[in-house]
């Protein structure tokens, strides 16, 4: 496995700085993403973890510029992809970048494929949008990517419709569409939650193989630390719209520095050893439209202090390449 440390010199393909995406709702401003920053290097996998509603998917939508406007809006920050800030550019320009430089695989394979077109047509369509090549080569290229995602007998299956395939196969077709134009960054938003363990293992291996082959950078959005452990080089732990801890996968697992990360890790049962009792995180995250002034985790934190409630903890370095936003970190 390639670790973050060995990647330090490779080129940064995606750099997010102080991104804020807010939604205007009848309850007030929902700060779904509130000031997150990270860099993604070539060939690296970054995991974004956190519980439901912490802003993982909104981060992904912001990176793809797919936030519904209104009610949503990227209120500040920059997303520099391949040297260009994609926040201010027009929708037309963004449409060209989507799919070709940054692609997406989402949670639900059933809704991401159109039930009335054959899978061959759908892959070809994705290629056609971005590449100006003759019809014959499009068909060839479509077959090639379908083979790449291990669709058995791809030649005969291109005419199949999504409902004729199993969940695992459909998810591979979605993957094929994702990589069809050789993007530099692939965002995967819980692509395996609907799959069985053995099928999930096949799919994760496939993603890794493709990544190695084309030096793809992947952002893996998940709530499952197992996937993080298996797939990621670096991890960003999100809580209430912010990144509370960020570091290499070993930093996070061996030396979790934010109480929330610690609690999350202690609350999942383990395969490799007997756990007597799981830690259970009390309470619920604060509503994103009514965030406290201090640390958002304060109401659930086992080591909360007075200053946690009064002021928000700034992001501090724990060690090289490992940061956490907590007053406990000195």
């Amino acid at each position, binding site marked *: 496995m390639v670790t973050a440390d060995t990647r330090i010199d490779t080129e940064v393909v995606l750099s997010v700085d102080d991104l804020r995406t807010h939604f205007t709702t009848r309850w007030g401003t929902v700060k779904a993403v509130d000031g997150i920053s990270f860099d993604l290097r070539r060939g690296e996998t970054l995991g974004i973890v956190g519980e439901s509603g912490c802003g993982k998917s909104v981060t992904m939508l912001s990176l793809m510029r797919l936030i519904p406007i209104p009610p949503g809006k990227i209120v500040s920050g920059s997303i520099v992809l391949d040297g260009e800030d994609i926040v201010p550019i027009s929708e037309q320009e963004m449409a060209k970048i989507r799919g070709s430089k940054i692609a997406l695989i989402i949670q639900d394979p059933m809704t991401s494929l159109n039930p009335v077109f054959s899978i061959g047509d759908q892959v070809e369509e994705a290629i056609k949008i971005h590449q100006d090549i003759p019809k014959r080569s499009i068909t060839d290229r479509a077959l090639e990517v379908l083979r790449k995602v291990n669709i058995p007998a791809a030649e005969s299956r291109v005419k199949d419709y999504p409902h004729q395939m199993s969940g695992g196969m459909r998810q591979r077709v979605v993957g094929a569409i994702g990589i069809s134009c050789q993007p530099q960054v692939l965002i995967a938003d819980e692509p395996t939650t609907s799959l069985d363990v053995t099928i999930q293992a096949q799919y994760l291996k496939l993603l890794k193989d493709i990544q190695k082959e084309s030096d793809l950078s992947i952002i893996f959005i998940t709530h499952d630390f*197992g996937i993080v452990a298996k797939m990621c080089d670096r991890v960003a732990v999100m809580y209430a719209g912010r990144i509370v801890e960020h570091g290499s996968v070993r930093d996070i697992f061996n030396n979790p520095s934010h109480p929330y990360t610690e609690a*999350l890790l202690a609350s999942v049962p383990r395969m490799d050893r007997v756990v007597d009792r799981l830690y259970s995180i009390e309470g619920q995250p604060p509503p994103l439209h009514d965030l406290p002034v201090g640390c958002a985790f304060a109401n659930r934190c086992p080591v909360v202090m007075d200053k946690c409630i009064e002021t928000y903890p700034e992001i501090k370095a724990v060690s090289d390449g490992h940061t956490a936003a907590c007053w406990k970190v000195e």
Partner: protein
Amino acid sequence: MTTIDSSETKAERGQVLLEAKNLKKYFPVTKGLLISRTTGHIKAVDDISFALRAGETLGVVGESGCGKSTTAKMMLMLEEPTEGSILFEGGDVHNSAAVRKSYRSSVQAVFQDPWSSLNPRMRVKDIIAEPMVINWNITKAEQQERVMKLLNDVGLNEYHSNLFPHEFSGGQRQRLAIARALALNPRVIVLDEPVSALDVSIRAQIMNLLKDLQETYNVAYMLIAHDLATVRYMCTWVAVMYLGQIVELSPVQELFNNPSHPYTKALMSAALPSHPDTEQEEIILQGEVPSPLNPPPGCYFHPRCPAAMDRCSVDTPVVKEISEGHTLTCHLF
């Protein structure tokens, strides 16, 4: 049983409460609109046997469609087995009305989807009291008293009893479902993926709650799961299912220390690691689970089995006990 007092139902930990013997469930597949004829059978559950013991948990794992929920439904008498019997305290529930009646109030369930398990039009207190209304001859005041106790047991309080289900979060709804399942002092609770639909941070709460309640009331659980780590944390026994059959049944320690069946090994290697440095054997199973409509001949697992031998595609393996309580269905043993 028409009493709140549960002392008589206390059993020794480990005592067999319920036995499933050679259960089968075949769903007929029919063709034709007016005159329908049966063209085949989906063998959802194909000859399985197991026992549930007081104070212990039997975990059932396997890929989707392998028959876990169908087994649960038969245990809950929501589906009639095609063949086989369920023995409760020694009596066959399908033969004796008396056994059936006591079975009904002794076996309860918690399902996966906390949004569909509670009637949205009923108040919490009525939802939890319903099993008592049906089975027990007690006054309204006694019922409500017990509802309050049950709410306390699952970590909710009296204030919640007048609310409607939509006013609760997923985790809290699952607590309500558990309170209801406990209402009759059941001796067995069937849990069909009780934490799968919940958020990561809530799962530990519910799992700990279930463990605590088992400790207090000495109930037997049948826990259906697809996550091996959950099974390791929760269970005393594990049954691994593949295509309607139990391929390996074993005490939990033994299974994790010494997984024996090729399918169990594959499941273990496919399971996600708990730490990035965990060394895992790489067994990536090829292909997908065959259709239960026409399972392959011989061992059902042979088309995907990395250890398959010639005879596997011809002879059907039988159940063998390789050590105390550890049974396997494979020609390798």
